[in-house]
């Protein structure tokens, strides 16, 4: 199997295809600290792309409540269980090229050989049962009122199963991975990664509904349509990214979920362009981290972890960069504070930015100004037991 370089792991890894990076790589940062679980993003996506017959249980964007929630149910716990105990990370070897150190365990592409005897599988995975897809917010915000509760067997049927110690919301779309497991898994070669922007798509005319992508994508983002009998997934709103929406007159736009977000938690850009605010957040300030980097697909949606959740849980989810990310985010410098103001500030895609004393300016594809936002920071005086922001 060819070797490819995965910077999130700080090492080479096995992947069924030669490593060929796209010219630009679609990426986004989601700031969990700001998400209030209004689900506007989910509905923006649904009303744009998945309102047809057969797409009822299809949520290309979903927001789930950790630790109980998951769509499909328990997707991450099940995949972590398949991967089993792994040695973890050598953080002493971290540097600018390997920001989280070197991952010493197996990825899903590597573990498929050591942890299963199944043949023809490229990445370790499982196929969720139909019932695991039944509700995007099962165990979360949906009150359960069933026959059992009417009979008094479930106690108070209107009481929500809340995890009272702590919880946070995890916003999920396809990660448009650099090394997609879905693409590796497809025996028909129906999944491709666009060289111009790294967006991963399923060719609907080639797919025969074998569901290998559903089985082997660790994030469970390809979904099977029982009506058309083929699989579908998030398309990163590629017509908007291409600039074909008449609203912006040819200027690339951010995706629907990103532009609709009430909490302004989302920012879209390019992970491999040093001028992009995304590159700054992930590679320079290091406040945004990949989701389960140990899976090995090099996912391209990055998260600013929630400040309030237990660190051990967050380290399992986002890797060893969690403590530094939370510390830096808790005491933002002028540049970080400025870039945070670009979140949700415009529907146009911000390619680069300039920070001034009291404003941050975002520039578009042709280096023209697309947004200007004031960087006014209120004086924050928090309770004594927590550090203060200013």
């Amino acid at each position, binding site marked *: 199997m060819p070797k490819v370089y995965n910077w999130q792991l700080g090492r080479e890894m096995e992947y069924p295809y030669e490593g060929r990076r796209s010219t630009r790589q679609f990426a986004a940062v989601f700031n969990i600290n700001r998400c209030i679980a209004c689900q506007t993003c989910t509905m923006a996506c649904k009303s744009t792309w998945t309102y047809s017959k057969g797409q009822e249980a299809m949520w290309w964007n979903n927001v789930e409540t950790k630790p109980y929630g998951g769509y499909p149910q328990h997707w991450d716990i099940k995949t972590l269980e398949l991967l089993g105990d792994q040695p973890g990370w050598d953080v002493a070897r971290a540097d600018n090229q390997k920001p989280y150190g070197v991952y010493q365990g197996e990825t899903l592409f590597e573990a498929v050989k050591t942890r299963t005897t199944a043949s023809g599988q490229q990445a370790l995975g499982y196929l969720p049962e139909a019932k695991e897809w039944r509700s995007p917010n099962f165990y979360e915000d949906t009150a359960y009122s069933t026959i*059992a509760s009417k009979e008094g067997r*479930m106690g108070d049927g209107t009481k929500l199963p809340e995890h*009272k110690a*702590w919880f946070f919301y995890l916003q999920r779309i396809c990660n448009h991975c650099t090394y997609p497991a879905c693409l590796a898994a497809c025996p028909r070669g129906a999944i491709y990664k666009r060289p111009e922007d790294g967006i991963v798509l399923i060719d609907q005319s080639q797919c025969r509904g074998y569901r290998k992508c559903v089985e082997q994508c660790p994030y469970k983002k390809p979904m099977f349509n029982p009506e058309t009998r083929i699989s579908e997934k998030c398309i990163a709103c590629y017509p908007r990214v291409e600039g074909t929406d008449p609203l912006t007159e040819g200027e690339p736009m951010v995706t629907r979920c990103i532009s609709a977000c009430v909490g302004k938690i989302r920012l879209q850009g390019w992970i491999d362009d040093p001028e992009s605010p995304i590159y700054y957040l992930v590679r320079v300030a290091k406040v945004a981290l990949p989701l389960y980097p140990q899976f090995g697909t090099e996912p391209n949606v990055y998260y600013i972890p929630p400040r*309030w959740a237990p660190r051990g849980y967050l380290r399992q989810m986002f890797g060893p960069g969690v403590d530094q990310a939370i510390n830096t985010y808790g005491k933002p410098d002028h540049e970080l504070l400025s870039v945070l103001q670009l979140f949700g500030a415009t529907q146009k895609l911000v390619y680069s930015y300039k920070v001034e004393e009291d404003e941050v300016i975002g520039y578009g594809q042709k280096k023209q100004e697309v947004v200007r936002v004031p960087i006014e920071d209120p*004086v924050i005086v*928090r309770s004594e037991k927590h550090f203060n922001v200013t």
Partner: protein
Amino acid sequence: MADNEQFENPEDFELTHHVVPGEPGRDHIEEMAETFIIEFKRMRWSDEAILAMFRNPFNAGPYYVFKERGETFVMDLLSRCVKSKD
């Protein structure tokens, strides 16, 4: 078996879970509420707008705090955590 038949078993809807404990000495929910306040203040929302956000059941996170800890808790946190320059 048709897909929806298997959903009729009510046992499928029971929550099987165990608690993932928080860290000793931390009130994670209060920290979460503080974070929401600071984040929305940074976006220049007024105190009234932030309180309204906590009151709105469609905003699951802030509403949980409002429901569990009460309005006084949220208002107290608002005045304690954040003071605008103006």
